[in-house]
């Protein structure tokens, strides 16, 4: 882990999508696999995609998900920008996981949009090479070996098989790849999930509680890894309950409660404004619905 942490930060321009990734293809069901470079993941290919990276942000706009009369997510809007680690915070039941699932095309929004690179997830031609995700609900077959799990994902995602051993080394599972996942510890499963997300060398990473089950060394590895990925110009969105960890890792925070946005902006700005710790600010912002006197709900969404 952390092998890429020392990479030079890449400059990035915003709002200028590379022509190849312009959001024109939005019909997922007629995917015709015209991506001719799909099966040969060469260095030149990777360079081309790093160009795309410069526009790879997340845009959530008026996103709403209702289950009967209950709105799990209610008119949520925010953006996540490349080159930064953004923390996605909120109490249990705030709608974080539902939001991430809508962003990844697993749950259909009642209304609103969640776009990656200006496209819905289902409109991405080779999604694993654009977005890497670790979700809490992601699982592994206990009878499958760790390496085989990644081989399946590589085959499914049009990713070179050579990436499998690379990411196993990157997350520190080089020696455990040949073992069945049923024998893995929770921390090892988290690492395997992270390896799954990194497999396609994606420009956008979406991580739901990636720190769960990690020991202190694992936490430090994760922090270095995410900082390094952001420094390379990638977009990193992570949800977490561990605010002390978040405070050390993220540049920006998006705080939600009751399915609505409570605050979005740079972490430093949030904690400096009233001289609070992140925890104090978090508890204040998420305490009561829509009565925050500081008007954080209407604060500028772009940091």
């Amino acid at each position: 882990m952390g092998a890429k942490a020392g990479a030079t930060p890449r400059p990035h321009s915003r709002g200028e999508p590379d022509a190849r990734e312009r959001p024109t293809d939005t019909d997922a069901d007629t995917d015709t696999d015209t991506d001719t470079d799909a099966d040969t993941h060469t260095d030149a290919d990777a360079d081309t995609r790093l160009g795309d990276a410069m526009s790879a942000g997340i845009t959530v706009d008026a996103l709403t998900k209702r289950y009967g009369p209950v709105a799990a997510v209610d008119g949520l809007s925010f953006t996540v920008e490349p080159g930064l680690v953004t923390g996605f915070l909120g109490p249990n039941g705030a709608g974080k996981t539902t939001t991430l699932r809508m962003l990844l095309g697993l749950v259909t929004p009642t209304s609103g949009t969640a776009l990656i690179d200006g496209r819905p997830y289902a409109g991405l031609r080779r999604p694993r090479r654009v977005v890497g995700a670790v979700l809490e609900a992601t699982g592994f077959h206990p009878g499958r070996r760790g390496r085989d799990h990644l081989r399946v994902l590589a085959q499914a995602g049009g990713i070179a098989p050579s990436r499998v051993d690379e990411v196993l080394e990157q997350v520190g599972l080089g020696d455990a790849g040949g073992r069945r996942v049923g024998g893995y510890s929770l921390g090892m499963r988290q690492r395997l999930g992270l390896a799954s997300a990194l497999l396609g060398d994606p420009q956008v990473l979406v991580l739901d509680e990636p720190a769960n089950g990690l020991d202190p060394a694992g936490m430090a590895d994760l922090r270095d890894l995410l900082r390094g990925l952001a420094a390379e110009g990638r977009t990193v969105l992570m949800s977490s309950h561990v605010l002390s960890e978040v405070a050390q890792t993220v540049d920006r925070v998006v705080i939600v409660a009751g399915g609505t946005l409570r605050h979005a902006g740079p972490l430093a700005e949030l904690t400096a404004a009233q001289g609070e710790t992140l925890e104090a600010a978090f508890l204040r912002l998420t305490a009561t619905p829509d009565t925050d006197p500081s008007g954080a709900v209407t604060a500028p969404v772009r940091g």
Partner: protein
Amino acid sequence: MHDLIRTEGLKLHTLRSPWLVLGAAPVLVTAGISGLVLSRTGPLDTAAQSGALAHVGLSSLFTLVFGILVVAGEYRHRTVTDTFLSVPARRRVIGAKLALSAVLAAACGVVSSAVGLAVAAAWWADKGVRFDWSDATMWATIGGGVAWNAAFAAIGVGVGALIRSLVGAVAVSLAWVALVEGIVGQLVGNLARWLPFNAGQALGAGASAMTRTDLLPRWGGGVVLAAYTVLFAVLAVTTTARRDVS
């Protein structure tokens, strides 16, 4: 689609449980044929031959469970999230599962048939009776049995996609075959032959039926079973495309 089927193949290749289920089929056929020979009071004639090879069709119970595993196993172990992250076009994923399950189940049926023929021929030789390799009814029984295997694998994919709980899907399916078609079948009388398992029995029947006598003709069983297969395949594809994955 080719890539999707290869991915599904790799998923199965890297596991053991689905192969144990399919591997049980020739074992059941061997046991069934041996039991039939040992308990038979009548002569080992051609009717006995096709009756012995009718066990090939019965092993569709295993291909049904196999089809359920292919989908519901992914829900059980939550690998389905990664599957749909890799390929958001869920209809195509289910299509690949349907195609591969049916083909593997048919292959399993062919293996069961070969094993069944070898076992039967050995028993016939042991009893000093000539085994008639040219009996047309026996070959029709085998062909019908293989098709029944394939159809039930696809129906299993459908049941797995509809119910999603692995334990629930297996329990419902086996209860359906063992209880509903048997007990309710007696209540509804002649209508029972239109139910899926009985249609399969008609398709893979020997010269005389194994459990009931009022089955459809072989071709009729085939048509009815094909209709059920299409119905479950369509339900699998449409419900999977529509539902949230959580």
